[in-house]
C-alpha cells in the first residue's frame, strides 16, 4: 500500500517533468503584450483583434505597476512589443526610462491632445473620471459639496470612504498638488484623516462599502459603481460630478505604448489603432463603462458626456511625480 502511494506520487512528478520539454513559441508574427489591464476586461477585445486580423497575440497580465517595473528591469531584452497600462503614470515611467517608441501621428490624432503624451510616446485608449459615488438612501445629491475640498467639512465625519493605496487616488492627489500646491494637498488629506475617512483596499471595496452603508460616499473612479450594479442591480448607488472645473473632476486614462525594442512595430501600431477603432471603443464603452477617447465617439448614455465634464487645467504628463505625493501622503496617513 505504502509503496504504491509512493509510486503514484512519483508517477505524477514524472509526468509533470515531461511537460518541461522546451516550449516552442511561434516567432515573428506573434505580438506580445504586457497588460496591466485585467484579462476579464480586455481579453475579449484582444480575441476579437486576433480574429479580425489573423495576428497571433500573446498577453502577460499583472498589475500595471509591477509590469512597468519588470519592463524597466528587462530593458532591451523584453519580449514585449506593447505595454497596455491602467494609468498614465506607469506609461510616464517607461517614457522617462527611454523605453518607448514614438507613435505615428494618425494614432495620436485620433484622441484629444489632453489624452496623449506631449511627445507622442503613449496614447490614451479609454478615459476614467474621478467621481464621488454616494449611497442614494443616505445622501441626497443637494447635500454633496460643490468642490472636492468640501469634504474637509466636519459634517462628513466618518462618512467618507477612500482608497489610500490606489494609483488613481495618488494620481488625483498629484493633480491637486499641481493645481493648488503641496500644502493644500496635504491639508486636504489631513482633513480626510480628521474626518475619520475610512480607508479601503481599492476602489471596488470602497464602492461595496458605500452600497452596504458602511460609509455614505467614496472618492473613486466612475465605472466601479457600474461593475457593482451589474452584480447587484438594486444597490442604492449614484455618481456625482462636481460643478465647474473643480479639481475633483480629474480624467485619467488607460493607455498603450510601443516598446522601442520591439521588432514587430507595424503590427504593434495596428493593434493600438484597433483599440482606438469604433469596434473596440464600443466594446469598452459597453463592457467597462469607461469613456471612449476616439474623437467624436459618444459615451454610454448613462454617463455624463466627456464634453460636459470640465476638467481642471492639469496636464496628465505632470502626474508622474508620485514620489512627492506619496511622501506627503505618508506624513499624514501613516501615523
Amino acid at each position: 500500500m505504502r509503496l504504491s502511494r509512493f509510486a503514484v506520487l512519483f508517477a505524477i512528478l514524472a509526468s509533470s517533468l515531461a511537460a518541461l520539454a522546451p516550449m516552442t513559441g511561434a516567432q515573428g508574427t506573434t505580438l506580445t503584450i504586457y497588460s496591466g489591464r485585467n484579462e476579464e476586461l480586455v481579453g475579449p477585445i484582444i480575441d476579437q483583434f486576433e480574429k479580425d486580423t489573423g495576428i497571433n497575440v500573446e498577453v502577460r497580465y499583472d498589475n500595471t505597476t509591477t509590469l512597468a517595473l519588470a519592463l524597466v528591469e528587462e530593458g532591451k531584452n523584453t519580449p514585449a512589443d506593447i505595454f497596455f497600462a491602467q494609468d498614465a503614470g506607469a506609461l510616464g515611467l517607461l517614457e522617462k526610462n527611454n523605453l518607448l517608441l514614438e507613435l505615428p501621428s494618425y494614432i495620436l490624432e485620433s484622441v484629444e491632445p489632453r489624452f496623449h503624451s506631449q511627445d507622442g510616446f503613449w496614447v490614451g485608449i479609454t478615459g476614467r473620471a474621478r467621481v464621488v459615488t454616494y449611497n442614494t438612501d443616505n445622501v441626497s445629491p443637494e447635500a454633496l459639496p460643490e468642490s472636492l475640498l468640501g469634504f474637509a467639512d466636519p459634517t462628513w465625519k466618518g462618512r467618507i470612504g477612500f482608497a489610500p493605496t490606489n494609483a488613481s487616488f495618488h494620481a488625483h492627489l498629484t493633480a491637486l498638488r499641481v493645481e493648488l500646491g503641496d500644502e493644500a494637498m496635504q491639508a486636504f488629506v489631513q482633513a480626510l484623516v480628521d474626518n475619520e475617512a475610512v480607508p479601503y483596499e481599492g476602489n471596488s471595496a470602497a464602492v461595496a462599502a458605500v452600497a452596504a452603508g458602511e460609509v455614505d460616499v467614496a472618492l473613486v473612479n466612475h465605472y466601479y459603481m457600474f461593475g457593482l450594479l451589474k452584480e447587484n442591480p438594486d444597490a442604492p448607488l449614484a455618481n456625482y460630478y462636481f460643478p465647474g472645473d473643480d479639481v475633483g473632476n480629474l480624467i485619467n486614462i488607460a493607455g498603450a505604448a510601443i516598446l522601442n525594442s520591439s521588432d514587430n512595430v507595424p503590427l504593434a501600431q495596428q493593434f493600438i489603432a484597433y483599440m482606438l477603432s469604433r469596434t473596440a471603443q464600443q466594446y469598452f464603452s459597453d463592457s467597462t463603462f469607461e469613456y471612449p477617447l476616439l474623437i467624436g465617439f459618444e459615451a454610454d448614455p448613462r454617463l455624463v458626456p466627456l464634453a460636459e465634464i470640465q476638467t481642471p487645467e492639469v496636464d496628465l504628463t505632470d502626474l508622474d511625480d508620485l514620489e512627492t505625493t506619496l511622501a506627503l501622503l505618508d506624513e499624514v496617513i501613516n501615523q
Partner: protein
Amino acid sequence: MRVSYRKNLVSTEKLLLAVSIPLAVLLLFPLGYLVIRASEVDSQAAANYLLRGSTLRIIGRSLLLVFSVSLTACLIGIPAAWLTTRTTLKGRDWWAVVLTLPLVIPSYVGAFALIGAFGPRGIFQGWLETLFGIERLPSIYGFWGAWFSVTLFSYPYVFLSVRAGLRGIDPALEEASRTLGKSALETLWRITLPQLRPFISAGVLLVALYTLSDFGAVAMMQYNVFTRAIYLQLGVNLNFAALLSLVLVVFTVLLMLFSIWMEGRGQYYTEHVHRKIRLIPLGHWQVAAQLYCIFIFGIALVGPMSVIAYWLYNGYVVQGEELHNILRPLQSSIRVAALAAGACGISAIPLVFLQVRYPRFFNQWITRSAYLGYALPGVVVALALVFVGARYFSTTLYQTLPMLIFAYVIRFLPQALGPTRASLMQVSPQIEECGLTLGKSRRKVFWGITLPLMRPGWVAGMALVFLTTLKELPLTLLLAPIGYDTLAVRIWSATAESFYARAAAPALVMVIISALSLVFVLDGDDRR
C-alpha cells in the same frame, strides 16, 4: 572498521556540501539583487528614510503582528494536532484534513470573506440587528482584522508540523512517565511538549515568516506593515523598496535566531523501535473536543467557503452566467504545484542532512540561508528573477517553466525544510550506523532506513509546498511562460475587477484538489 566508517562520514559531508553550497548561492539571488538596488540610495537618504517615524511604526506593527499571530497559531495548532493524533477524537482523519485546508484559501479571498461576515455592516451584524437592533459592529479593519485573518490562514503550518512530530515521538517515553504515576496532563507538559520543540519551532518560524511576507490579508484589512509599505514604495521608488526589503531580511535572520533559541539543544531520537501509539480516551471530553474543532472549522473554512458558494450561486443560478472552462488552468496548477513540491522535496534532503548530521556553524547557516526567499514579498523575488533572467538568460530560461519552478523553490523551500529537518532529528544516527556496520552501502541505508523513518515530515513538507504553490500569484504572473494560466491567476483576475462569480468556480476547485491531495498524504501516514 570504525576508522573506515569515520572516513566514510567525512566524504559524505563533502558530498553534501558540494550540492548544498551551489544551491544556497542560487537561493540567495534575490538578496544580491536587493543589495544592488538598495546600494543606489545614498547612505544619508537611506538613514533618514529608515529612521523616520512612519518607517519605525511599520516595523513596530509588523513585529506586533508576527508575535501575536505566532502565539495564536500555536494556541490553535498544537491542541488540534494533539487531538487528531493522540486521542480517541471521533473522525480524527477527517479533522486532520479539514483543519489543514484553511491553508489553501488565498488570503485575499479569506480576508474578503471575513469582512463580508464580520465587517461593520456584514452578515453577522445583520443577525445582531434583527436580534438586538445593533446597527454597526466595531471596525474589523486594522490590527484586529489582520491578526484574525492571518492567524486563521496560517495556523495549519503549526498544526501540520506538530502532527508530524507527535507521530514520530517514541511513545515509550510517555508510557514510562505514566507508569511512574504522572497524570496524562503532566506527561503532556513534561514529556511530550519538550519533545515537540523542534516541530513547534519549525511551524512557528513558517507562520512568522508567512506573516511578514503576506500581502493579501493585511492589504484587505488596511493594516500597514512591511509588505504593504514595500508594495506602495515599489510604485514610487524601487530602490527604497529594496532598502525596506533588506530590513525585512534582517528580521528574518532575527526570527531564525529566536527559533534556534526556542528549539534548544536536545536529543530527539531514542534507540528503540517505535511501537504503536496508544490513544488517550477522551471520555466525556469528546463533546468539548468536537466543539473546539467545529469552531475552528467554522470560522476558518466554512466561512470563506460559504462566501465562495454564494458567489457561485449568485453568478450561475441567479444571473445565469456561463461556466468558464477551467480544465486547463486546473492542469497547469497541478503541474506546477507538483513540480515545485518535488523540486523542494529533493532540494531539502541534502540541506537537511548537512544541517542535522553535521551541525557545524557554517553548515547550519548554509541551510538557513534558504529561509530568506520565504520572508520576502513574492513580487520582490519575482523582480529579482526578472532582473537576472532578462539580463543573462533572455533567450534560454527566461519565462520558461524550469525558471518558474526554480522561483517557487526560492520562495517555498523552507516549508519543506522545516518538517523534514524535524523528522530527521527523530531518526537515531545509531540505527543508520547499524545498517552501515552490517555491510549495507550508504545508498541502501538511506533508501532502506533513513528515508522511510523521516518520511512523515518529508511528505508533510512537500504537501505544504504543493498547497502553497497552488495559490501562489506574483511569481506565476511575472515568470510563467506567457499565457500560462493557473487557478490562482483565474481567481485573481476575476476578483480584481469584482467578477466574484467567475472567481468562485476556480476557488472551489482549488480547495477540492487541495483536500484530495491532503487525504492522500495524511491518510497514507496514518496507516503506517
